[in-house]
């Protein structure tokens, strides 16, 4: 029986399904937080605070999403952020200008991306090992640049740090009756612009589609004429470049260089991407989902702090439990959609798409 191929389209791809779930859960969580605790959650400022705090994470997670769609992994991003922040602060305090500092940030990120991309795609070394070495190198270099924590003393940069974009119509009326506008930092704008750019690149350009191709099945991609090695190389270059930019944004948020800056940023970024529906096996993912992944993690943290679980261990345990929940949900949802394979050998609801 022949079917019209145009009519037999899947209603939702795996990517969109996972993204939809994440967005749904984010709103459910946020609205229930609004209903239970009210207060800060009712104001737009809470959303902007979460964005302000996580602008760098959003940028890094976007880069990581691209790498993960391409079937790789980059765990050097946290180290690169720390190195960029430290070098830029030292550079600014040594009499550099903001422009050269930005160039330095992009340069460091690009250098890491190029080196790691070359080693991974052209020398065919496992990405985990290379980016792990990259992380070690970046962290080590950070302390070589300066062991002591450094604070930015550059006046122009301080002004840039304190520049806030005010959005009056999302503000709230304070007790005294005056309007307090919602404030967003410049980093948030940079992050959102990059996010939209990558979103369109992944959707509309040949390069963007090639990332999905090499992640889904690199052999098929090769046979279809995709330059697998170059595409993989570019994915790491983009990730490195974005971690450089993220370092600059991070510095605009904190204004201080510290050897432990962005500790664990790589794992947070990976967790956000996963929550946002990117699969580590490659071929599936979306940056909008990543944005909501970051926001979901931020909301969980915010809820844990608001709910008064004062003991220091609860925050991480809650985040871990939520992560577990998301991962299980993804697994079950994908398995419900899966077809073929070992039917009957294992319970139907556990059965997943790939072996």
């Amino acid at each position, binding site marked *: 029986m022949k079917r019209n191929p145009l009519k037999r389209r899947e209603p939702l791809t795996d990517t969109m399904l996972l993204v939809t779930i994440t967005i749904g859960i984010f709103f459910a969580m946020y609205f229930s937080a609004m209903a239970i605790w009210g207060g800060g959650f009712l104001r737009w400022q809470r959303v902007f605070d979460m964005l302000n705090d996580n602008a760098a994470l959003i940028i890094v997670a976007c880069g990581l999403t691209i790498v993960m769609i391409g079937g790789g992994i980059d765990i050097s991003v946290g180290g690169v952020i720390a190195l960029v922040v430290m070098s830029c602060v030292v550079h600014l305090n040594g009499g550099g200008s903001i422009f050269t500092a930005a160039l330095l940030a992009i340069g460091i990120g690009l250098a890491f991306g190029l080196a790691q991309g070359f080693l991974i795609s052209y020398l065919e070394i496992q990405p985990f090992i290379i980016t792990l070495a990259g992380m070690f*190198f970046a962290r080590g270099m950070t302390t070589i640049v300066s062991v002591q924590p450094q604070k930015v003393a550059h006046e122009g940069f301080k002004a840039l740090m304190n520049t806030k974009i005010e959005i009056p119509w999302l503000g709230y009326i304070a007790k005294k009756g005056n309007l307090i506008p919602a404030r967003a930092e410049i980093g948030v704008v940079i992050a959102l612009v990059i996010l939209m750019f990558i979103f369109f690149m992944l959707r509309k350009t040949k390069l963007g589609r090639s990332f999905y191709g090499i992640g889904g099945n690199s052999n098929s991609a090769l046979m279809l004429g995709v330059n697998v090695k170059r595409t993989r190389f570019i994915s790491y270059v983009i990730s490195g470049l974005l971690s450089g930019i993220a370092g600059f944004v991070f510095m605009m948020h904190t204004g201080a260089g510290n050897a432990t800056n962005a500790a664990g940023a790589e794992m947070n970024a990976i967790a956000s991407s996963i929550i946002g529906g990117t699969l580590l096996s490659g071929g599936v993912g979306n940056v909008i989902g990543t944005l909501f992944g970051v926001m979901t993690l931020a909301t969980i943290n915010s809820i844990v702090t608001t709910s008064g679980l004062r003991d220091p261990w609860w925050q991480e345990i809650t985040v871990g439990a939520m992560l577990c929940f998301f991962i299980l949900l993804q697994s079950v949802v994908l398995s419900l959609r899966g077809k073929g394979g070992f039917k009957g050998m294992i319970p139907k609801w556990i059965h997943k798409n790939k072996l």
Partner: protein
Amino acid sequence: MKAHASKFKWSKYTQLLVPLMSILLIVIFNLLRDPSFFSIGTSTNNLGNPVLTGNLVSILNGASELAIIAMGMTLVTAACGGQDISVGALATIAGSVFVRILRSGQITIGSILVGFLCCCVAAMLFGAFNGTLVSVFRIQPMIATLVLFTCGRSIAYWINGGATPTISSPLITAIGSFIPGCPVPTPIIIVAVMALILGLVFRFTTLGLYTQTVGINQRAARLNGINPMFIKLVSFLVLGLCCAVAGCISVSRLSLINHETMLLEIEMDAILAVAIGGNALGGGKFKVTGSVLGAYAIQALTTTLYAMKVPSTDVKAYKAIVIILIVVISSPVVKKATNRLWTKIRARIPAKKEVVAQ
């Protein structure tokens, strides 16, 4: 026929070339730099026992936890084609269970045994949790273990109710450093015992073969009557056990537990050890010996850097350079190029080669 047999035997051990080469590199470097690096002496410790000292001893001693965890990590990597990044957290949980039980009463050999058993059970339970996520729910190991990686250290903190509890007893010191009358540090003995047990298990059971089969092709393994889920679960249980032992050693060394710094980033080192050991991180064929050698190579590198008076915070950068050097040399592309070169050289001396073959 005989030539063929010996050739086959060689190919069985080519995997160990990478870790051996890395160790050799470090040894040569040290010989050129300062031959006294390798001197082994004896001295008397605080308790009045003669003990072995020297860089070699401290390398073997310092790599104990790493070597033990690398053994388990090899199995998980081989069976699941992914890595467990929660080993540091898992070892910390095991260590804090150990401390919790020892602090509840008098420290005797009996209570240490009970504590050790309890922490093994706890670590294996968490290992089973990871294993279930990976085997039953088919989640990639790195993501499944991200859960415990995120919250494991907090759980350890929670078990002891905060602070950095201490346990002091000569018995604990004996586990962490030296047994009176024995000049070899106890952790080295524990590693040897673990290696022996694991070696016996591989020798007398089919665990090694089955793990390899599941790692190479899960579908084929299943069609041959092997249960991949069970094998994966077992690999995580073994890793849990290894983490428990490593946790106990680490706690005993310092006689206290600091949930934030204990065995920090050991997961990265353990994965590195597995990779330097010549095991494919994508699963399949594996050699535990390779990983253990890899662990010692990493520790030798660190000790060398310390001996060169590199500040402890900067060690990572130099370590990264050496790691990249090692993986680049052992990368498939470079290997192919050297193979090509090798065949060219062999082609130039054909007569001699023929004689050897016959």
